[in-house]
């Protein structure tokens, strides 16, 4: 499976859990909103990416399968 991360910027409320879990692909801007690496998620990070999606309190983080 290949997949990419995407955020719904309207739903996102800058809780920042995603960047805590997955700093390899997600960093926060000066206001705490995630800047996401939208290239293909490396295989070894797929599990963490799915976890980041699952823990987002506003369900704003999405993992799109290509």
């Amino acid at each position: 499976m290949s997949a990419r991360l995407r955020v719904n910027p309207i739903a996102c409320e800058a809780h920042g859990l995603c960047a805590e879990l997955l700093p390899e692909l997600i960093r926060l801007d000066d206001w705490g909103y995630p800047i996401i690496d939208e290239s293909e998620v490396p295989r070894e990070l797929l599990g963490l990416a799915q976890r980041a999606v699952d823990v987002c309190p506003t369900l704003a983080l999405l993992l799109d399968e290509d």
Partner: protein
Amino acid sequence: MSGWLEGHPGLPRLLAGLENTGGGPMTLAEHSRVHGELPRRSASELIGAIERSGLRGRGGADFPTAQKLRTLAGAKRVSAVVVNGSETEPASGKDRLLLSRLPHLVLDGAMLAAQAVGAPEVIVQIGKSTLGSLQALEGALAVRPVDPVPVHLVAAPEGYVAGEESAVMHYLNDGRPLPTFVPPRPFQRGFRGRPTLIQNPETLAQVALVARFGERWYRELGTDADPGSALVTISGAVAAPGVYELAFGTPMTDLVEAAGGATEPMRALLVGGYFGTWVDAVQAMRLRLAREDLRSVGCSLGSGVLIVLGQSECGLHESARVIDYLARQSAHQCGPCTYGLRAIADSVGALAAGVAHERERDRVLRWVAEVRGRGACHHPDGAVRFVTSALAVFGKEIESHRRGRCGARPARLPIGGPTVRQTAVAARRQ
């Protein structure tokens, strides 16, 4: 294919006959006299002609119109054709000119589009304050012979982002004029949750002409890559600001001349409106009204807005006011837009006021790169494009502002809601 009417030679095309309407809307009789009766065209005939004409959308995205029509024609249960007459760009006047003065031309195009995509309804959305458009459309609908599908007029709120197509759908569906997270886009799921064709009024007016006169006529003006004519709203330091119809390929110098010429030596031109790009005047005067020329300096025509900045005016101050306006016009739904544009606007304001160190500019450039592409709609993208070009063209003036040496006149670009500009008819003929 046959049965084309004889088209207008040269310019004007869309604005043909406008000088004889006494400032009011063109009557149906006059409209028929100027352009001829609207012929019947099958969907494939119309879409084929539009495709060969090379017509692209005039709302700012430049998308090939035939491709959009074909997609919708192949979709099931299309809900409507929406004419997006919001025109929330303060420096644009072309859509209001078309809707208030040439309503039959736009309605003809909407009917053709509705038949081509099998839409059971046409919705014309305009801004709440544009009473001239509302009255002209109501008057036009009252006298038109029965159109094949019903037309509904909707007057919507007028914030800058309210004209964005997902915001138009949102308003029609839920009464909230705010952009939504896309996809789905309107052609996938729009009005009533079904595929919807949304088009700019000028695009539909051009469709109404191509349906009458054919693609060969359409391509008589313009360049191979950019055929036809376009409406351009020209304002700023020109003698006769207004809406002009010009052929693609026209040199920028001729555009400025069409608007009465510059009233003072030019400093820069803002191409494409507030989502657009500042171009140094010397560089701009080497360009033509053509996508390839504009792309070479990193800009596009957008919705057809051109603003001339004179040398006695201050690009930094003007830009600071515009980016502040754009930050306030954010729908405040997405964090990067809400906070990022505010921060950028405050910093640019400080640079223009001469109270920030020049290094503040580096911070702005970092934010610009970070904010781009991170909103649900393209509001932050357009705003940072504007800021990037402002810093590129007027960046050298930051230091003189810091030393208190800007002697330019106060800013005057229109902000804070649509400004109805004096409108003029294209004077240029080929």
